[in-house]
C-alpha cells in the first residue's frame, strides 16, 4: 500500500515517466499536471491500481489564468483506504478548452463537469449530457472567466477601485 506522497510519486513516475510536470506538495497534497491526452490514462491508473486505489472523485473544477491564456481543470482524488489525496491539473488553451470526460470512471463527474462547462466553457468530450446546470440556458457567457466583472459595468457607483479591488 502506497501511503505517502513519495511512494505515490515513484509509482506514477514508473508508469508515466516525464509526462508528469510541475510536481509540488502544497500543504501535503501531491499536485501535478499532465496533458489532456494523458489525463484519462492517469485517472484510470490512479483509480484502478490496487496499490493506491484512488476510488473517490472528491472534486472537479476549473481555474482561469488569463495571463497564461489557460484554463486549468483540477481533479481532487481521494483514496479512502490509504487516507491520502491527490490533485491533478490539466492546462487547456483558453480559446478552445476541451478535454475527455471522466464520466466513464465516476458517475459523479457528470454534474461536476456540467458545472465546469457552465462556468468556464470547458467542453468535456463524450459527456452524455453536457448542458448548463446552474445558469440559464441562454446566458451566452461563461461567467467565472476572469474577463467578466462582478458588478454591472454600466453602474457608475460601483466601480471596483472604490472598493480597493
Amino acid at each position, binding site marked *: 500500500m502506497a501511503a505517502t506522497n513519495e511512494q505515490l510519486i515513484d509509482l506514477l513516475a514508473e508508469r508515466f515517466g516525464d509526462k508528469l510536470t510541475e510536481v509540488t506538495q502544497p500543504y501535503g497534497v501531491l499536485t501535478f499536471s499532465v496533458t489532456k491526452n494523458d489525463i484519462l490514462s492517469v485517472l484510470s491508473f490512479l483509480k484502478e491500481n490496487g496499490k493506491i486505489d484512488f476510488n473517490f472523485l472528491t*472534486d472537479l473544477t476549473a481555474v482561469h489564468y488569463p495571463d497564461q491564456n489557460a484554463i486549468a481543470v483540477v481533479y481532487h482524488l481521494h483514496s479512502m483506504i490509504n487516507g491520502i489525496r491527490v490533485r491533478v491539473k490539466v492546462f487547456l488553451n483558453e480559446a478552445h478548452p476541451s478535454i475527455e470526460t471522466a464520466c466513464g470512471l465516476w*458517475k*459523479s463527474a457528470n*454534474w461536476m463537469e456540467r458545472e465546469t462547462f457552465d*462556468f468556464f466553457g470547458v467542453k468535456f468530450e463524450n459527456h452524455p449530457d453536457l448542458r448548463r446546470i446552474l*445558469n440559464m440556458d441562454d446566458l451566452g457567457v461563461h461567467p467565472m472567466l476572469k474577463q467578466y466583472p*462582478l458588478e454591472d459595468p454600466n453602474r457608475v457607483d460601483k466601480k471596483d477601485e472604490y472598493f480597493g479591488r
Partner: protein
Amino acid sequence: MNHNQPVYTDNDPQSELVTLNLGPTHPATHGVFQNVLKLDGERIVSGVSTIGYIHRAFEKIAEHRPFYQITPLTDRLNYCSSPINNMGWHMTVEKLLGIEIPKRVDYLRVVIMELSRIADHIICNTIIAQDTGATTTFLYLFQFREHIYEIFEEICGARLTTNIGRIGGLERDVNDIAFAKIEKFLKEFPVALKEFESLLNRNRIFIDRTKGVACVSQEMALSYGWTGPLLRSTGVDYDVRVSEPYSSYQDFDFEIPVGTSGDIYDRFLVRNEEMWQSVSIIRQALDKIKLEPKGVFHADVPAFYLPGKEDVYNNMEALIYHFKIVMGEIDAPKSEIYHAVEGGNGELGFYLISDGGRTPYRLHFRRPSFINYSMFAKMSEGMLLSDAIINMSSMNIIAGELDA
C-alpha cells in the same frame, strides 16, 4: 417488495405517459427543486432534475472579497448548519496562514459544530417522518432545533445565518448563560430523542414506507460521490472527522454509525445514531473545556485576528492591524489548499487558491448536496412517486448548498 424494478414494458397497452412538473415550488420538496418526471400511473419512468433556481454566484463574489468577508457567504450554503460551514472556512484560511489554534477554541468549535450537526439531522429526520405522515414527531423534536438556535443566539447574536467565529478563533468568549443553555439542552434533548426513536424506529407504518425503499449499493454511492450519512448508510465508514481530524476531533471518543442497505430506513437510523454520538462529543468537549485555561477564545495572532473595538480606540498597534485586516492587507502565502470538514450532508470542501493578493484567486466549494443530488433522477426511475418524495427528504438536499 423491490421498488427499484420498473414494472412497465414496451408492449404495455396502458403505455401513455404523463409528464409531471414536480417543483420548482412544491410543498413536498422542502426547497426550490424542479424535477420533470414521466409517470406511468404512479410509477416514475424517467426524470430530469433542473437546478440553479437560487444560484447566487458565491464563487464569483468570493473572488472579490477579502477572506473575512467570505464567511457570511458560507452561511448561506447549507443554512441548516451554518456554523459548520463558517468553521470550515475559518479553518481553511487558518491552515493557509499557518495559524495554531489553542485547544480551548478547538473544543468550543467542536461544541458549536456538533450542536449544528444535531440541528441539521433533526431537520432531516423529522421531515422524513413528516413526509411519511407522522406530524407529531416533526413538531415534537423540532422545538429542540429552536433551543439550539437560542444557544447560537447567545454565542454570536444570530440564529440561522450565524457568521460565527473569526479567522483565528471566536469573536467573543462563550458566556455562562450559553454554557447553562447547553447544559439544559444536554439534559432535555436525549429524553426527547429517545421518545422520537420509540415513536418511529419500530413503527410498522414507518418501516413499511422506508425499509427497502431506494436501496443504494456501496459501489453506486462511491461512484456518484456520496459522502456523509448517505454514504455511511450504505456501509462505508468514511467520516472526515476521523479520516482527517480537524479542530482536535482526534481527542474525542466517538463512533461512526453505518447502515447496511443504504435504504431510507438506514439513512434515518444513521442520522439518529449520529445525534447520540454528537451529544456524547459535546459532553466530552465541555469536560475538556473545564481543564483548559479560562478566557482563551482566540489564537494570539494580531496580524490576522480582528482586535476588539476598545483596543482599536486606545492602542496604536491594534488600530494598525484593524485597518490592515479590514482593508484585506494581510500577508497570505501564494499557494493552494483543499480543506474538508464533515458537514451535515457530507464532505464540505473548500478549494482555495491564493495568489498573495487581498482576495482569493479562486475559491471553489465542494458542496455535498450538489454532488449527492446528481443521483436522484436516476434513482427515481421505476420508483413510486410517493417513495421518490421521501427519498428526496432522506437525502437532505438543501437548496442553498445545491445551487451556491
